[in-house]
Each structure stands twice: as C-alpha cells, then as structure tokens.
C-alpha cells in the first residue's frame, strides 16, 4: 500500500503510546451494528499497483471517442479550445495543486494573488466592476445570480429567456422556485423573443444568455432598459466566454449581474466538469454577492498582500444568513483560466475570438449550402443552429458512424419537444481545421440526402 507510510511496527508503537490494545479500541464509540469487516465489501477488490490501475482505466478510456481524435463540432455550453501546454504544467505545481483554500494568507499569497488577478480579469472581460473568486460552473452561477437578485430586489419572480441553456434553466428552476417563481419564455431558435412583456413589478430579474444556446448573439440594451424600467435587474449569461473577445460585453449593455461559464479558457471539456463559474456585478452589490473574494491589504511590515475578505457574507461566519452555502469552489480551474488569459492578453484574446468567428462563419456557409439544410441564426459568434430535413439526432448518429461528432441535436437538450427535433447546434473553434469542416459538410450532404 504505497500511499500509507506507517509500518506495522509504527502502528504497534503508536497504540502503546495511546495506551489501547488495538485499533478496534479507538472505534469503541461506534455502535456494534455499525462495525463491519472486510468481508462486507467483498464486491470490491483489494489494492492494486499503478500499472494495473493504469491498465484498467486506460481500457475504459479507450472505449470513448475523444473529441481531439475526430472532426468535432459540439458546443452548447462546453467548448473545445486549444490550451497552451504551460497552463496544464503550471496548475500541476504542487504548491497550487495540493494546497487548501487560502485561510492562512501568510503562506498562501500565491493562491490569493492569482485569485485577485482572476477577479480582475473576469471584471474586465464582462465589463463589470467586480467579480468573485468563482462558483462551481456557469449554471450554478446563474442560479446564484437569480437568488442574489431576489435578495437585492426583495421580489420573487425570475424571467428566463428562451435562449437560456435548458440545463441552466432547470438548475435555476430547481433552486429559485423554492422561495420564488421562475417564468420560462419560449425557446425559438434564431429569434430574440419579447421578454419585456413578461417583466412586471414582481420581477426580480430577467435572465438572458448571449450568445444564446442556439448561438444567436443578442443586444442586451433593450431588455436591460425594460428591466430597469420596472426596477428589475438584468442577469446576463455567457456560456462561451471567448465571445467576449469580439462581442460587446454585458457590462457595456446594462447588465447588473453576469454569470458565465469560464471553461473555454484554460479548461478542458472533461465530460462536463470540473468547470468554473464566473460571477461579476456592480460594486454596490458586493455585500450580497455569493462566493469568496480576495482583497488587497498590507502586512505588518507594510508590504502589499492579499487576504480572503468580506467573509461576513459567507457560510463559515454567517451560517444560515450567508449569501450562499458555497465553500469549496473552482480554485484550480480559476488558475487555469487566469494563466491562459494571461498568455492571451488583449491581442491574443481578440485574435482567438476572430479566428473562432471566422471558422464558424465559413462552416455555417458550407453547411447551409447542403440541400435541405438552413441556417436559423443570422448572427452568431462561434456557434450556430441549423434546421435539418430530418430529426437531428438521427443525423448526429449517422455522422458519428462516419467518425464525425457533428454537434448537439435539439432532442438532446429538449427531449420530447417535437418542435426542437430538427435543429442541430454546431460549434466551430480554432481547433476545427478547414479540412475537418469540409469533411463535415460532405458527410452532412451524404447523410441528409
């Protein structure tokens, strides 16, 4: 047992010091019915060496088709981008990987400083005044944003736009309907929808995603104005943060809170997690903000340093009155985000965004040129929606059989909604080379015909 440093002799000596005859004696508070032997776990094997574990898991891994091994066009809330090698190297440094939440700031300045940098980057990207040190992911960040709006406005109702990722909408619904009310606008691919009419005096917030789940980009100004006119807040949701390198940020269009999924920057697909929830808002709202914050201060010698601050919002101090129950967040994913964005800088980030848009635009043309296929999202960033002449899930399966992962079919996100059946959501990034796009177009032509 390579991870356990105590020898049998050590154990005996320690038991002597403790003055008990055996380790069972240490478990004497456990009621009899609670103590079980190894045999109870017979279904579980004994310990294994590295080589064997590696073999077992590699075999499982080999049963999957990894995104990088085929032409790949899935998005809808998770995006495949190229992550510079230095990112993954740096986040694995022991001092980042194997440290805890920076509760002892004198020996955690590394973590605290990158969180401060992360907060700054998120604020800059979203065009907001302040940001926190992350939540779990974009969906839970959205739910927290709605709760925060309910607290700030003391109103119960949240209006969700139809373009909000349905998993996000369900997450919000689960949480925000406990003490409030969640209204879902209709999902109409490629259309902005009229949210203004759903906003009333009970409305705490309107939640709008842009680019939305179909890829459509929205001007948030009108809905911000409509919300503000009724005393409601605008929550902007971004699932593809790379879009912020090309598209006007929510903060510039009147958003009060921005909840976003940060995975695209620095973090791999990982089959859905861990990801990193970004959360930004106006300075005046910080005392109602969920999540940790790293703040600047000085030490006893007057040197600049950072600490976790405004903890009186948090569960470990405020308990049932906390702004959120979150404790462990997405630390290391923030770090990956921060490093990748540091590498990109303004120039790289803008170029990355342009490249994504360029790839997606050209792919959209190619695919829309296939007979029977039409593009339903007139304006988009790196993702768009097609209407197909057949149910999209069948097409996706047929493409997969040809070795192409060709996007996310409507039925995957809206099971049993017939009107969504023929829609296919397609994403292209800098990792989709021209030849893969061509292969996709050709295969699509074959399978739809």
């Amino acid at each position, binding site marked *: 047992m390579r991870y*356990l440093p*105590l020898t049998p002799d050590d*154990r005996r000596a320690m038991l002597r010091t*403790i003055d008990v005859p055996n380790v069972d004696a*240490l*478990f004497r*508070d*456990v009621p009899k019915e*609670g103590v079980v032997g190894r045999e*109870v776990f017979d*279904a579980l094997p004994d310990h294994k060496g590295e080589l064997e574990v590696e073999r077992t*898991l590699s*075999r*499982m891994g080999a*049963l999957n088709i990894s995104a*990088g091994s085929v032409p790949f066009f*899935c998005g809808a*809330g998770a995006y495949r981008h190229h992550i510079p090698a230095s990112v993954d190297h740096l986040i694995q440094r*022991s*001092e*980042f990987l*194997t*440290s*805890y939440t920076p*509760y002892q700031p*004198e*020996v955690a300045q590394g973590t605290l*400083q990158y969180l*401060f940098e992360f907060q*700054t980057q998120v604020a800059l990207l979203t065009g907001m005044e302040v940001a926190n040190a992350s939540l*779990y992911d974009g969906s839970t960040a959205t739910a927290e944003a709605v709760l925060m709006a309910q607290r700030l406005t003391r109103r119960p109702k949240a209006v969700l736009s139809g373009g909000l990722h349905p998993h996000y909408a369900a997450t919000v619904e*689960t949480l925000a309907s406990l003490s409030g009310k969640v209204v879902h606008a209709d999902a109409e691919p490629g259309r902005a929808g009229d949210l203004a009419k759903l906003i009333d005096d009970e409305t705490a917030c309107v939640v709008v995603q842009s680019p939305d789940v179909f890829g459509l980009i*929205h001007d948030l100004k009108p809905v911000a104005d409509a919300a503000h006119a009724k005393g409601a807040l605008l929550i902007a949701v971004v699932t593809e943060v790379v879009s912020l*390198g090309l598209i*006007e*940020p929510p903060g*510039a269009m009147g958003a009060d809170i921005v909840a976003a999924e940060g995975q695209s920057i620095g973090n791999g*697909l*990982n*089959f*859905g*997690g861990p990801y990193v929830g970004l959360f930004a808002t106006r300075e005046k709202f910080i005392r109602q903000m969920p999540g*940790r914050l*790293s703040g600047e*201060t000085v030490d*006893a010698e007057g040197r600049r340093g*950072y600490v976790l601050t405004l903890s009186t919002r948090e*569960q470990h101090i405020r308990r049932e009155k906390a702004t959120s*129950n979150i404790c*462990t967040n997405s*630390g290391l*994913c923030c770090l990956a985000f921060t490093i990748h964005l540091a590498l990109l*800088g*303004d*120039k790289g980030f803008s170029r990355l965004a342009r*490249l994504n*848009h360029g790839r997606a*635009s050209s792919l959209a043309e190619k695919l829309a040129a296939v007979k029977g296929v039409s593009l339903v999202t007139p304006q988009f960033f790196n993702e768009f929606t097609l209407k197909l002449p057949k149910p999209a899930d069948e097409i996706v399966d047929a493409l*997969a059989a040809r070795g192409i992962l060709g996007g996310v079919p409507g039925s995957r996100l809206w*099971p049993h909604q017939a009107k969504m059946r023929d829609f296919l959501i397609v994403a292209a990034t800098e990792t989709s080379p021209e030849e893969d796009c061509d292969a996709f177009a050709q295969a699509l032509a074959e399978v739809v015909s």
Partner: protein
Amino acid sequence: MTMNPVGRPTGIEAVEMEHPQTFSGDRGLDHEEPLLFELGREGMCGVDIPQAQISDKRLGGLQRKKPVGLPGLSEPEVVRHFVRLSRMNYAIDAGLYPLGSCTMKHNPRLNEKMARLPGFGDLHPLQPERTVQGALSLIAELMRWLTTLTGMPAVAMSPKAGAHGELCGLLAIRAAIKSRGEQRRRILVPSSAHGTNPATAALAGFTVDEVPALANGHVDADALERMLANDVAAIMLTNPNTCGLFERRIRELADAAHKVGAYFYCDGANFNAIAGRVRPGDLGVDAMHINLHKTFSTPHGGGGPGAGPVVLSAALAPFAPLPLLVHDKGGFRLIESPDDAPPSTKPFGRMCAFHGQMGMFVRALAYMLSHGADGIRQASEDAVLAANYILASLKDVLSAPFEGPCMHEALFDDHFLEGTGVTTLDFAKAMIDEGYHPMTMYFPLVVHGAMLVEPTESESKESLDRFIRVMAGLAQEAKSGRKERFAGAPYLAPRRRLDETRAARKPVLRWAPKDAAES
C-alpha cells in the same frame, strides 16, 4: 579571500552581519512578484494566433467597442509569474497540513495522469452516448464503490462539492416530504456543525434550529430528541462530528427522527475516519454527501474544484436529481428528462448543467482501485491512529477539551494558553515559522479557541513525532512567557501578518489602471 575560479575549492571564513536589505526586494530564492497587470505591455502576447480576416456581416453590429484591457505578456514572463506565485504557497507536497475537517491527504500523481487521458479529459458532455460508453461505465463503477462503501442503495453524482451535496440531499428530502403531501420546514442542526450545514438548510428553504452540544463534545441527544416533532423535516448531523468524535447515539437518533417522519442527513465530510469499517447505511442515514476531495483524495487545488456525490437511502433515492444514469441492453444511457425517468422515480430537478465532476470521478476511482477495499480500511485506521497518537502525545502539553479516543481529528482548546497572552491565532502563526501549516482554528465553535488537528493517514510516524515535538516546544515557549515569538508571528513566511480589517473596511477587489484609480 583570494581569487577562486569556479571549481577550485573555496574555503569559508566567518563573516557576519545583519541580514542585508536588498536592492531588488527579493531575498535569495524568495522573489517578490507584481501583478500581471503591472507586468504587461501593450501588443505583447504569449500565444501565436494568426489574425483572421473576418467580415462583420454575422455580428449584428454587436462588436466590442473597446479593448478588454488585458495585459500583454510573453510566455516566459507568464511562466515565471506563476512559478514565483506558487513558491509563496504551502502545500501537502511540501509538508504536513493538519487542517482539521479538510483531510489534506496525499494526492497521487497517478490520478492526475488518469484524469488527463484523452478518453476522459477530452470528451464533450453532450457527445452521442454510444461514443462515451467507457466514461459512463466509469461513473457507474464509481457509483458502485460509493454505494458499497456506504451501504446505501443509491447515489446522486452531479453535486460539485460538499455544500452542493448537502443541497442535493436536502432538496431530495424536501421533495420526499412534499410527495407525502406534508409541509415540514424545520431542520435541526447541532451548534458544532460546519457553516455550510445551516447555510444549506436556509438555501433549501428550511429554518434552522440549533441543537446544543454536551460538555463531552457530542451532540445533546436528549435535547435533540426533545426537539423532534412533526414539523421537523430532517436532522443534520456530522458524523464523525466536527469535534473529532463518533456520535455514539447516532443509530438511536436516526430512529427517533424516522419515528417522527423526519429524515437523517449526515454530513460525510469526515468519512475518512470510517470508510471501510463503518457503513452509514447501517446507522439509519438517509442522505450523506461524500467530499471526493477529502476522503478520496482529489486535490484541493487551492480551494477547488471538488465533488460531492450524495448517497441516498431507499426512501430518498426516487427523488434523486437529473440526469440519471441507467444501463440497459443498449448500454449506458443518461436520462435528462423527468418524462424518461423510470416510473418509480420523481427527480426533484437538476443541480447543474451536465453530469458532475467527471475529472474528479476519474481521480477518485483511481484512488479507490489503488487502495482497494483493504487499503481504504487501512487508511481510515491509520488516520484515526495518527490523530489519537497526537492527542495522546499532546493532551498534557496543550489542553484537550474532550476525552479520547477521537476519530481522525484531535481537538485542542486554548486553555493551556490562559494567562500567556498568546491566542490560538498567535499559536497558529508561530507554527508557520516552524514550517507547518496551522491546524484549523476556532472551529468548531463549541470549543474555546479551538485547534482542530487532522494529520491524515499520509504521515509517517517520524513526521508525526516531529510535529509533536515542535508543538510541545511551542507550548512550552508560550507558557514560559515568550509572547513576542507568537504575537509577531509569522516572522519567516513570505508575508508577516496581514491586515484583514483594512481589507474588509475599504475593499480592493481588483486591480485598476492608475488613472482610473485616481479619478
């Protein structure tokens, strides 16, 4: 000293002075490091991406008007920046990290390697299911380990950390109560509970009633039983509890709760003390989250990410949230809609997008396979043994509020510091000078000046002995009046004590360009 070409042996002379002030501000291998934003230069870039020619016809006039304002750095600068920052951190890999309640155990690098296999790390959550059968089978295998180890029939995998797991468990309880046509709004939580417990209860729409603790560190079971009534939705106990003790009357309390129609939520943060020896399912637990980032060693990463799967009793299993993982003739499938859920189930909703912390699942399973059921049992025993060894060795030097044996944490209070002018905080900071990360301080709240020491099973006896020696030395030092050794500590860390009051009073939460800051 004469000229000493490199390689020609150099002798040493004794030359002494006060430690020099440096021009650079750096001190040997300890470098100061500015913010990224202070390092960057316009136009510089740490990646090479071609400038794509694009048209604006698909942008609907929504192009960004102003640059983001990110600093430009080359790759070497970025690497150096983060390497320097890292060197200001303490880490398990660098030393004992006795942070009680956090289970800072060894994080095997094998697990990192496995999580990065393209067959796991490079999968999209919405790929066609038949292209991810291996990944789904891994989740199923992990579920099998978790349910077997806990003796519970079901587990919900999507919660992203312990607190998220608590929420998931309480929402299942809420749904179960609702499905019984009842309305129960109270949750009983001991005063010793972790802050997430009451916070989660409130978030899930419950009111929190605090159960007092006994002088022996256990929850006041009699008081709890008295508080139980028809309007109680659940009791929420941590076991082993936050004082490091196993709640002796746990089974009895579970039965009492069940008798009034309430459920038993168990905070499983301390599962590392009992995994492989005790099954919560045998003790009447209805829901319990497991912090994979504690018991199953996925790295804490400076605060996350974690994963908090929740095991559920038969009573709660039907209410588990979407997605559900099922296996039938077509292989593994994910059920994403209540309409597709088996008739016996009523998912209460959804905890988050997608299906949980896959990256953590791979690591946790690699950990489990490496340990095996035998190793997990041994690890728990060693963790408990180590804590008791520390308790036994230090209880007369520091002061222990409760009798042993403890579980995997040894709790001390600040009684031994009485009259010394040294506080728990001061003591903790002096540990930093000694090369140790402090234990958890001032938690649980039921003990004055609490010091909660969790050595974990990852330390050798030599390492524990050394820690004990140093702690005893410091206690001696405090008692013999060397207050300044503590009050000014740490002296030897990258920073001296930081002004938290100032940070909170006028929060500076982001960097801002100089001119903006001035305006």
